[in-house]
């Protein structure tokens, strides 16, 4: 049985801290970015790839990745899909959200230094990759060619348009595609794997970072393998239903892994077989 002291420690770990919404901006018809500052003057030493548990008071708590910011001002981009994400996306400046974190593994960026980089994002999957791209831009000379391959459902679902233009100007090869478009769209149409085939990189030195729906990541990783990348050079961020984010409850278990502790960023060899398991 847990001692009173142990129970108190556990409870403290689950306690959300109050952070104030200082800005809220709409990125698309169903995605909002919140900027948060601690109401108690706290900071957060987060890394790109990690996530926070965000609590909409009285409604619920969900995992949301960092999409930018710094230790004092956190950015989270939230797609409205259900009760909690809608409540969070509806928060206005001045209101409070509960924050627990940062949790989980970070993108293994250091391993990519000195070589080429391929970043493949699908839909809201661009949000967790955004701080990674920003860090690469800040240290651009440490990397060879950097390709950002971004797929969205339709042109109106595209996110971070201004950032994409900025990154282009900073020497990132940004390629975009949408799954569906009308004739007014002059860009690429087709799934994001088509962009992998078109990208130019040296497979021997390339590190790849993927985030998006699981099927998109699976086919993108297979395409990268086909292009000659070592499976260990491919990292991807997994999304699983999560509750405690501390490895206690088991909701996010995926085979032998807890996504909240061992992930969300995994290397492809650890996910390859699990992603082929029906119903997992």
């Amino acid at each position, binding site marked *: 049985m847990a001692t009173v002291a142990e129970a108190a420690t556990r409870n403290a770990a689950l306690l959300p801290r109050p952070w104030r919404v200082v800005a809220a901006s709409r990125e698309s018809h169903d995605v909002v970015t919140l900027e948060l500052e601690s109401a108690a003057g706290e900071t957060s030493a987060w890394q790109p790839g990690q996530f926070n548990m965000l609590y909409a008071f009285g409604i619920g708590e969900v995992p949301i990745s960092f999409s930018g910011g710094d230790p004092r001002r956190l950015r989270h981009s939230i797609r409205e*899909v259900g009760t909690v994400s809608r409540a969070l996306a509806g928060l206005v400046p001045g209101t409070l959200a509960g924050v627990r974190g940062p949790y989980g593994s970070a993108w293994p960026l250091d391993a990519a230094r000195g070589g080429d980089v391929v970043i493949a994002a*699908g*839909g*809201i*999957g661009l949000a967790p990759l955004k701080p990674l791209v920003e860090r690469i831009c800040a240290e651009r000379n440490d990397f060879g060619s950097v390709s950002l391959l971004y*797929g*969205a*459902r339709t042109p109106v*679902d595209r996110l971070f348009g201004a950032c994409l233009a900025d990154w282009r100007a900073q020497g990132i090869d940004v390629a975009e*595609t949408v*799954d*569906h*478009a*009308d*004739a007014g*769209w*002059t*860009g*690429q*149409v*087709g*799934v994001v*794997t*088509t962009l992998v*085939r*078109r990208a130019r990189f040296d497979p021997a030195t390339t590190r790849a970072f993927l985030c*998006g*729906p*699981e*099927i*998109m990541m699976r*086919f993108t990783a297979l395409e990268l393998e086909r292009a000659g990348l070592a499976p260990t050079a491919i990292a991807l961020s997994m*999304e699983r239903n999560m509750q405690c984010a501390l490895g206690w409850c088991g909701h996010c278990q995926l085979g032998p892994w807890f996504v909240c502790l061992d992930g969300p960023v995994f290397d492809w060899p650890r996910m390859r077989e699990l992603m082929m398991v029906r119903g997992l």
Partner: protein
Amino acid sequence: MKTLDVVIAEHPFFSGFDPAHTALIAGCGRIAAYQPGEFLFQAGLPADDFFLLRRGTVALELEVPGRGPFRFGTATAGEVIGWSWLFPPYEWQFDARAIDAVGVVRFDGACLRGKCEADPVLGYAVMKAFAGVLVDRFIDTRLQLVDVYGHRG
């Protein structure tokens, strides 16, 4: 200026082809260019050719009555478009339209078919290359059908 067989040999679609074969294939090709909005081919017309894209982007579309053109894909430099020349009735099923300035090598399909029939080794190499493209397009189309961003993601 590069000769056509060099242009062809350097294109990803024909990379790995025997130089003797690229020389034969070059005999059926010519350089062509299209302005934005111009059709490379249109549904219902005879499919006499195929195109190696060297520059620009081409929209692949299907005209849907009452709705206008439905764009299901695009192709860019380094890719090949057109396979209706391979099989009877040699008629285009879709439209291909230049989105921007497009540069291609345009091949006479009947000419290459003749050479493939006469030289099965060449024929097999060409078929294998086209089969690879068809498989990729098929997988892409299936993924598009899944609509991965629609509900979760």
